[in-house]
């Protein structure tokens, strides 16, 4: 790889300062995400042209070209990652704004939450085992629909691989963001309450982010979905494993 070698040479020569490195990777990350949004608009807002996925792939390629370790990158863009915390708290505002809708559909929400959580956990385990995946992979798949920190805690408790669960949570979220809205619309489900809850429960953060950007009611139900699904899945997974043969 001569090109990669040259690129790394340029990179190593011009970015000796830690500050420059931070600036560089922040610009790459923001730039690729902005480019991803432009591309998606150009493609008629196609949901499969997901800018999160685009940015992840492009940044990964840039890391490879410059032979930068992931730890260095993560340290550089720490500030973006940090904002996830306040942004999660910020979901409280759409939640409080649409509290009437939430309390009115509380029974429906409870049913949907239980059904969705159990389906996610059981189908994840069953699909992996049916296709000859290892027991460890199946265990790591079980809590994948939950927001990453909870998913990792559950995996550690049941003997899965935390890093693998984190990868599944992100990939599952991207898949849900890419196919969720169009699939549900095709089935005639247009209510933002259903869209938001489904994204929060089946796709955790990334899918919830997509719905939250589209509609405040969707944001409220996505926020509830994330929070409540974490609780329910933490209770369900040990129960399901108890009945799992082997």
């Amino acid at each position, binding site marked *: 790889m001569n090109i990669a070698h040259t690129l790394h040479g340029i990179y190593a020569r011009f970015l000796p300062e830690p500050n420059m490195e931070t600036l560089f990777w922040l610009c790459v990350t923001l730039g690729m995400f902005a480019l991803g949004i432009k591309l998606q608009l150009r493609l008629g807002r196609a949901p499969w042209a997901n800018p999160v996925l685009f940015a992840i792939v492009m940044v990964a390629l840039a890391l490879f070209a410059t032979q930068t370790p992931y730890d260095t990158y993560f340290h550089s863009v720490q500030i973006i990652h940090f904002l996830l915390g306040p942004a999660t708290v910020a979901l409280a505002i759409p939640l409080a704004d649409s509290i009437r809708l939430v309390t009115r559909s509380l029974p429906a929400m409870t049913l*949907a939450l239980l059904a*969705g959580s159990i389906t996610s956990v059981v189908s994840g385990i069953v699909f992996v085992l049916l296709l000859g995946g290892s027991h460890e992979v199946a265990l790591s798949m079980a809590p994948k629909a939950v927001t990453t920190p909870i998913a990792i805690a559950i995996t550690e408790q049941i003997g899965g691989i935390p890093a693998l669960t984190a990868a599944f949570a992100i990939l599952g979220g991207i898949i849900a963001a890419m196919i969720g809205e169009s699939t549900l619309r095709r089935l005639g489900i247009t209510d933002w309450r259903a869209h938001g809850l489904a994204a929060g429960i089946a796709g955790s953060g990334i899918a919830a982010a997509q719905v939250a950007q589209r509609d405040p009611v969707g944001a409220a139900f996505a926020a509830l979905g994330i929070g409540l699904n*974490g609780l329910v899945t933490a209770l369900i997974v040990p129960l399901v494993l108890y009945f799992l043969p082997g």
Partner: protein
Amino acid sequence: MPEAFLTLLLFQLLGSGLQMLLHLPIPGPVIGMFLLAAALLWRRNRASVNQADTARAGFDSPALGALARALIACLGLLFVPAGVGLVTQMPLLMANLLPIAVALFGSTLLGLLVTAFVMHRATHDRPAPEKIADTGGQVL
């Protein structure tokens, strides 16, 4: 705006503190989200009871709403740093490619469908009015 950001950070701090103290299985920011929602509702409720014209005073300010909208509008971007971490898991993912790919697709789709379908069927009132706001390019 500084007060609005302080509000978010304080509630995240509160949530994370509670999580550590009580060893709760839910992440601090998620607890903070529920606490802030409760605080906002409590405050709005009290303001409407007192008939005060300071209904949106204190931490429940328009600035907080604006900041929340801005943060939520770029929520997807905030997942990129963690998402790039996928590259560190490539060997493991590739070793189990077929079961992982099928399970991720199948299970995510099933979870979405079941949740949305049950919710759709079990809500008997009118659907929430659909308003797809054109946010000028911020649509993910």
